[in-house]
């Protein structure tokens, strides 16, 4: 049972890392596009968004790296879960909306048009991260947290 859980935790960690890595490097390669896409959500001013968008991209990358390394996996899973909750709230709030600046290049969490499929994908990632957090507290993880 424990071995199965450890294997499953590794598979999920590597899988979510892959998604986070792809998504964040895409945003870091084309940062202004992501600024414009985040600006479409109309949460902050454009000036504030210009600072916030690169922070989001970098945090996503770090969460992915921390997730794949067993020593920092819990931190990565917690930050990733917070990310997923944030993305899901924003997506549900804007369900069906087409972004004027959406280039369709950041499909996972900032698509051109938000559909139920996008919310579902983010929910699946959230469940995976929740499993990683639970497995830590159940003592299933491969490495013990040793801060």
């Amino acid at each position: 049972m424990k071995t199965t859980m450890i294997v499953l935790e590794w598979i999920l960690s590597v899988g979510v890392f892959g998604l986070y890595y792809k998504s964040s490097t895409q945003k870091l390669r084309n940062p202004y596009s992501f600024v414009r896409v985040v600006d479409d959500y109309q949460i902050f001013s454009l000036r504030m968004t210009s600072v916030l968008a690169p922070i989001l991209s970098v945090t996503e990358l770090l969460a992915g790296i921390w997730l794949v390394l067993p020593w920092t996996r819990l931190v990565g899973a917690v930050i990733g879960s917070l990310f997923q909750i944030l993305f899901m709230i924003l997506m549900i709030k804007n369900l069906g909306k087409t972004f004027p600046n959406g280039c369709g290049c950041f499909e996972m969490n900032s698509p051109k048009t938000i559909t139920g499929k996008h919310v579902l994908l983010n929910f699946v990632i959230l469940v995976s991260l929740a499993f990683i957090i639970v497995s830590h507290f159940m003592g299933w993880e491969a490495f013990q947290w040793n801060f």
Partner: protein
Amino acid sequence: MVSWVIMVVSLAIGVYFFKRASKKAEAQAQFLMQIGTAPFVRKKLNQRFTGYVLCLDAMRYPKSQADTDRIFQWIKNTGHHFFVFDAPSVFSDDQTIANDLQVEFLPALVPVKEGAPVGEALFIPSAHPQLVQMVENFVLDTGRKLIA
């Protein structure tokens, strides 16, 4: 201990990436501000512009800036008039420009005579190895129509 080392090192890398992304975003924003806006493009077409119009998709193809510089230099030497704009942002401000220029794919180079497109636009894939050569051939082919 290992956890702390990983956290500190990765945070340092994160700060570096943040600075780099911020700088790049600022440069991209400045580039977009320098090129044609919707009123500018509309004015040019209304003034019966003759020459080449480069319709970029700077959001999706951030490498467009380098391509533009190369294409711009070459067309300038041919003596044809030329201007550039970011198509998605201009088209969202004024949809009639998209209809007038008949652009189907982006980025594209459109030969324009007296404010109207002449023939089909050239689709310019950013990763094309012989980009300038392709533009050269297109301008040589269509240039005569603009002068005639």
